[in-house]
């Protein structure tokens, strides 16, 4: 039976890893490097189209009866069997044979162990522009299992109806009577031609990022303590994209190149910092391989695989944050939301492209809390020889539609280095302005390669 849907964990990592950015402006000639580690919750969840949160295994749950059969969730063949059986029900009958069919149920268990390490580098091209690049290394492992349970009355119904029903229906009931976890798995792997669903793993890079950031100080605009940051970045689709022949894989990257612009407006006073964030991402169209549903089944067979043209929808993000701390320790709370507008697919193979598109429209709301320790001030005062920022972040997606519930913790460390260009710049700057220090590093700020809005 064709019942499985693509695992919802497809979105789980992509949001976090697709766009590492660098939210910091470095002085000219100063470089920064960042190392990070992110660990996702193995008890992963997803939000369905109605916003309900479920365990990943719930997505695999199929009742081979009533609603799931009539809706097609239990597969094309059972939907057809239900529909045909319904025609033998009398009009007005409260419950006919079709609704008496009960072939048991299937439940799934799935765990995803996803970890990411990332390396980022930034460099102050000028005192106003900082370029940055980053690349994540991802280790993902998915283990899935399906269990069949319940009673199966297919043969009893077949016997009861006798030759009153068509041979195809009798054959269908025979097949239904043999439903089991193994038969389902066989259908997926042999008939449909998917890779074994029990286990999938990936070790490789995610999407690579290249971008630049600039900041405009409010001082120059006549508003003290105000900072307006602008970031532009390009995501290269170097990460593992959705494989149409693998059901349980996780797209590590977006699957398409994308251009993003983001801005943040911050205001700080007496240790309190608050601001708003906004971003817009536009993907670049590309041709990809997909299994195009024919409108009758949820899990398309190998014969439905075709090259389709993919026009990604935009990503729109926004958020608020509030931070408090001093030059050594600082805590930040962020709440935000992201929406991915519907993708569009087209291709020469006739099929239900709308169904493909419908599930691409997603949204999620998240919050995260972070704590960072910075030695920048101490380094400036020559109290410590290595400038670094150590940050710990916990992230949770508390609401969403058609999206994964991303929950992770992240640890990162950022350090800095100087180049001759920095020295030259510093000497010029020092002679003109500040001769108290001889170490040029950025001011303490949110410094993060990993979690843009």
């Amino acid at each position: 039976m064709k019942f499985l849907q693509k695992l919802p964990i497809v979105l789980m990592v992509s949001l976090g890893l697709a766009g590492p950015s660098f939210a910091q402006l470095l002085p000219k000639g100063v470089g920064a490097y960042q190392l990070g580690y992110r660990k996702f919750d193995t008890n992963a969840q997803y939000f369905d189209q109605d916003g309900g949160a479920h365990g990943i295994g719930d997505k695999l749950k199929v009742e081979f009866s009533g609603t799931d059969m009539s809706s097609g969730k239990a597969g094309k063949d059972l939907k057809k069997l239900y529909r045909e059986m319904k025609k033998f029900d009398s009009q007005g009958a409260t419950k006919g044979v079709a609704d008496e069919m009960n072939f048991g149920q299937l439940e799934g268990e799935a765990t995803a162990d996803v970890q990411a390490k990332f390396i980022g580098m930034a460099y102050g091209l000028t005192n106003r522009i900082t370029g940055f690049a980053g690349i994540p290394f991802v280790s993902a492992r998915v283990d899935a299992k399906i269990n069949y349970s319940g009673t199966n009355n297919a043969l009893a119904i077949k016997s009861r109806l006798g030759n009153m029903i068509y041979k195809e229906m009798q054959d269908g009931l025979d097949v239904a009577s043999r439903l089991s976890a193994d038969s389902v798995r066989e259908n997926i792997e042999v008939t449909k031609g998917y890779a074994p669903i029990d286990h999938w793993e990936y070790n490789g890079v995610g999407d690579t990022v290249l971008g630049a950031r600039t900041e405009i100080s409010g001082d120059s605009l006549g508003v003290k303590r105000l900072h307006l940051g602008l970031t532009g970045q390009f995501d290269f689709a170097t990460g593992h994209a959705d494989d149409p022949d693998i059901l349980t894989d996780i797209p590590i990257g977006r699957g398409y190149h994308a251009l993003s612009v983001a801005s943040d407006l911050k205001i700080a006073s007496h240790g309190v910092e608050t601001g708003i964030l906004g971003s817009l991402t536009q993907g670049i169209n590309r041709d990809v391989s997909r299994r195009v549903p024919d409108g009758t089944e949820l899990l398309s067979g190998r014969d439905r695989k075709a090259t389709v043209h993919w026009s990604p929808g935009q990503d729109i993000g926004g958020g608020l944050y509030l931070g408090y701390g001093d030059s050594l320790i600082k805590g930040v709370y962020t709440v935000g939301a992201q929406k991915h507008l519907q993708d569009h697919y087209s291709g020469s193979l006739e099929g239900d492209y709308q169904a493909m598109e419908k599930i691409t429209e997603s949204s999620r709301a998240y919050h995260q809390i972070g704590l960072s320790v910075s030695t920048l001030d101490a380094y400036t005062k020559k109290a410590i020889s290595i400038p670094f920022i150590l940050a710990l972040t916990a992230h949770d997606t508390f609401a969403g539609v058609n999206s994964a519930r991303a929950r992770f913790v992240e640890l990162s460390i950022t350090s800095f280095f100087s180049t001759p260009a920095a020295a030259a710049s510093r000497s010029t700057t020092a002679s003109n302005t500040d001769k108290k220090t001889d170490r040029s590093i950025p001011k303490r700020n949110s410094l993060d390669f990993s979690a843009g809005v």
Partner: protein
Amino acid sequence: MHCGKHLFQSLAILAVVVLFCSCAMKKSNNDTHRDLAAPRATPAVSWNGDGVDNFAPQISSSGDAQSLLMALSGCDCAPTAAAALLTASAVKRGILPQVFVPQIRETITSDSKLQILLKLPSGLQNTLKSWLASDSKIASEIRTGISGKLNKSLGNFGGTTLSNRSAFRLDLFSAFGTDQSSFKMADQAARWNLVMGGRNLWTGGAPLDGVDHGLQLLETMRVAAEWAYIAGLSGSGKPGGFGGLALDVRTGNKNLVAPYDPTTAPKEAGLFASGVFTISYANASAVDMATKIKEKWVYQADEVTLLDQARLWRSAALAFRNFRGDLSKNASAILGVKDGALSSAMQQLPLLWLPGMGQLLEKKFINIGSRLILKTAFGAEAPADLETLLTMADAIQEWRSATSNLATSGLSPAVTEKLKGVPQKLLVPLQLTVQSIISKHTFVQDGNDVKLFVGSNGQVADPRLSAIAIRILGNLEQNGLNSEELKAKVFSLFASHAPSWAAQQAGVDAPTMIEEYRAAAMIAKYQDAQEWMRLLRDKMGASVARWGGAS
């Protein structure tokens, strides 16, 4: 007299009456005629309350004769009523006078003595004709010849012989009303069911009228002659020069087709019969009519309804079953005797209608895309009504039954091979029909009752229709579909109707009463219904005793 005797001795050929004559007369033209209005009062029979086995019909001038004929077909009940109707058919004038019946006409025209007579000068010829071959003499000789053939067949299986009956005729196409010049094919189809539905001739049961089986055999001959005439078949099975009142699925129902040649007909050809036919001919002596006069038919197209066609198909299936030696104890004796009433070649005659049935079902009566069974062919797409669906299911089931296990049928290997897949092929339209009956004409719980609705508009089927549903669906369930689900529906339907049926007294129309009887008899065939029937009879008293089969 010698000439006439010789002539009518030749009527012995009537044994192979239908298929083995050569005919010279060309088919009459098939002009349509719009002025044909043939209002016919149909005989109706009402029940006098004496119980179904002693049912003595009171024929009136109005009512639904077709319903009565169908109710009696295969009933194995009401023999008095069936015999009365068959007798009426036997003695009444038909639309096509017997001298126009190809087999009789051919016998007359090929008689050598009569040929000499016809070559005499007209004055002498007329004198001798009125002496040697008067109309009454010819009629008498026809009767004698036919009686001889019937007696040969009846005697061959040890049955009673034809008694000294009052005059009977072999005119074709019974007149159902007062109009003696036109007939409606649908009326004939209902009569064919009555004739072919009687099993006692073929299985050795008691004669319908308590006298002999001659009446049934005569009517069987008549039906066979009618089918051959409609198809325009000659004795060799090739198209001949007489008759030809059939239509073809390929050309629709506007014009009649050329005589049907089953040996050369393309696969997609499909014979069927429908419409109203009006005959005209010049009045003359019997000899002149047989030798010189050509009958002219005017065909008026009518709606080709599935109900009428299903009745026709059903009658053919019943005939095919009757003619099978392995299914009918007396078939071999009746068909096998030399110079008897029917020949062994007759066994294939009902197959005439089978290709047309297949073509009509596939191309005209079933919208395969929407799987809708249609009420009419060649017209607007309207869903078939409940009675139509039930009759269609019955017809298909009879064909499935008649064409099953052909190895012992006595048919040639070639024919057997051709018919091999018929039962299975017909299973799908049968299942679709049952599905349509159940889903579109619903069995709905109504309080404590399960009622059969004729549609989704809340109209409950009348008792006759409900009884037909019980009988036909019960038969399907017992003989092929083997469905507990269907059985449960049939039982429920019967349970909700039985009390009111049992309480019925005189005044119920005959078709309804007979159908109720048959429904009860069908239920009584279920082993697990025996106790139920007993309880019902105890509860209802003697009024339910008329439901035979319940013990």
